């Protein structure tokens, strides 16, 4: 990694260069490049099959790229680490389908996510300190789940589960949050509230949001990257991107 010391790399939080992934000959990502600065919130749009989820999989270590570089914080080569190591470095992920621990209480969901030693010994003999409890209380308030803390997460509504999952990400306190379609299946008021929540989170975290819902992306008001067939098609403000004739063709031409 000869250019590891170059300024362009050290200033970025996430640096993807020429990343390609193929599954049985199908190219999910074709030489994808993307740079995210610390504190930045970015929206990723693109039609189905554009490679949005595969990109998330590469960043979080679920999928190893065939070629290309993925650097985090200028130092860590994510292609050499597994999911747990990457998560420990400070990359959190929210899935498209809300995945909370359905048989655990809301509070326990947050407890498991809270930044703390993850070893078997630490969880077997450790005690929860008051700091952890305060963090959990604060997150319960942010995500409007304080009244539901003792409920089994499986009994929450769809929107509440989405928020709980975002709350779990907050508890992890990652440097980078990957959020996959956070408003899918939400009502309009829930969508607006989620946009508020994400903007609040973006104040002290870097965030990548993958979303189909253009109203929501407009509400976020951040830089947009449009993916198509595994590569970046356009990048800029939402107005610039949606004015790009190639983007129009991709979205409307089929």
């Amino acid at each position, binding site marked *: 990694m000869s250019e590891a010391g170059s300024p362009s790399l050290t200033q970025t939080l996430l640096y993807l260069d020429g990343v390609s992934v193929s599954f049985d000959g199908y190219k999910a990502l074709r030489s994808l490049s993307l740079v995210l600065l610390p504190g930045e919130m970015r929206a990723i749009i693109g039609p189905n099959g554009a490679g949005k989820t595969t990109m998330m999989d590469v960043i979080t270590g679920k999928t190893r790229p065939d070629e290309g570089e993925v650097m985090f914080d200028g130092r860590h080569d994510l292609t050499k680490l597994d999911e747990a190591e990457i998560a420990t470095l400070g990359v959190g992920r929210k899935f498209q389908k809300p995945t909370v621990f359905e048989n655990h209480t809301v509070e326990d969901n947050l407890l498991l996510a809270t930044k703390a030693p993850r*070893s078997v010994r630490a969880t077997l003999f450790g005690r*929860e300190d008051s700091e952890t409890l305060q963090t959990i209380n604060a997150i319960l308030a942010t995500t409007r789940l304080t009244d539901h803390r003792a409920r089994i997460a499986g009994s929450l509504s769809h929107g509440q589960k989405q928020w709980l999952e975002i709350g779990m990400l907050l508890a992890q306190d990652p440097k980078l949050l990957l959020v996959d379609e956070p408003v899918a299946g939400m009502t309009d008021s829930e969508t607006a509230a989620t946009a508020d929540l994400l903007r609040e989170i973006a104040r002290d975290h870097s965030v990548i949001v993958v979303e189909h819902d253009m109203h929501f992306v407009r509400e976020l008001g951040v830089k947009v990257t449009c993916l198509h067939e595994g590569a970046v098609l356009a990048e800029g403000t939402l107005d610039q991107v949606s004015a790009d004739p190639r983007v129009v063709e991709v979205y409307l031409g089929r």
Partner: protein
Amino acid sequence: MSARLDHLGLGFVAILIVAAILVPLLSLVVSPDSAFYLPPYLVQLLGKYLCYAILAVALDLVWGYCGILSLGHGAFFALGGYAMGMYLMRQIGTRGVYANPILPDFMVFLNWKELPVAWWGFNWFPYAMLMVVLVPGLLALAFGWFAFRSRVTGVYLSIITQAMTFALFKEFFRNDFGFGGNNGLTDFKDLLGFSLQAASTKAALFSASAIALILAYAVSRAIIGSKYGKALMAVRDAESRMRFIGYRVENYKLFAFVVSAIIAGIAGALYVPQVGIINPSEFAPANSIEAAIWVAVGGRGTLIGAAIGAIAVNFAKTYFTGAFPEYWLYGLGLLFVLGTLFLPKGLLGLALRGSEPKPREVVSVDAVEEGAEP
């Protein structure tokens, strides 16, 4: 859910404590003419049930709380049993048929001149007890290390645990392997100097089994109640999610698997002096499957349910194999099918149902989750 379960758990422990005191009294102090007299064979039978209950608790720890349906737990039970059997064999000494002070009878019969290295030290009780926990524990560690790192899960993991116990089953059958082959180890005389034929030894072994069951429950309950336990259940429900939060899932599984194997080994060690024999049939794949049925019938993910299931099914087995021997296997199969269909939470689910504040919700969520990912 868990508060109610803990109350039942306390009741369960109380019953075991009473049994550990009462059974020896009824067997040793009460006159044989009395209606309350417990003959030694019955004490031995009850002790055997308790050993099965310990095995069931061990299996429930990994199956009920971590989703690892091990169909090879009989192997850990049998290995613990063999370690105890080897100690008992060396205690026979010159009282064997061939009166060899060092070599057990089967070795003399095979014309062996020296004691194999694997048998060294087994005349010393503490060493044998160390092996009771070490051998199953190390096997589980090695097996689990490979299996969990390779992310083998679900039914594939169940199949390779079956293969593991089957491989040991075949290996222990061989005379050359050095553990008595097909006949296994038997004709035991005494344990720590106490004759295994004596009613008092049988009563003591029963009480020891009851205490071991209490300890197995207490240790498992403490593990489940810690943050580790919450993480373990989260691994069961959403494994990849736990990885993305930063947990080393394979280490979580490995720890539970090793603890469970050690508990199973202890159960086997208590079982062997009570039944008086250990042979390769204890490794038979069917034994491990039967243990899974006990847990399912009693109620997985409850610990005490597993123990109750083991005792209830084995009681039924003892009765039915006596009364209608040819129908027992059909009965066992039927029990499993009906239990899965109508009692997703087992016998214990039945006990918990009446008292739950909102049982439907919890039970149905569990049933769907568990059904989807065995």
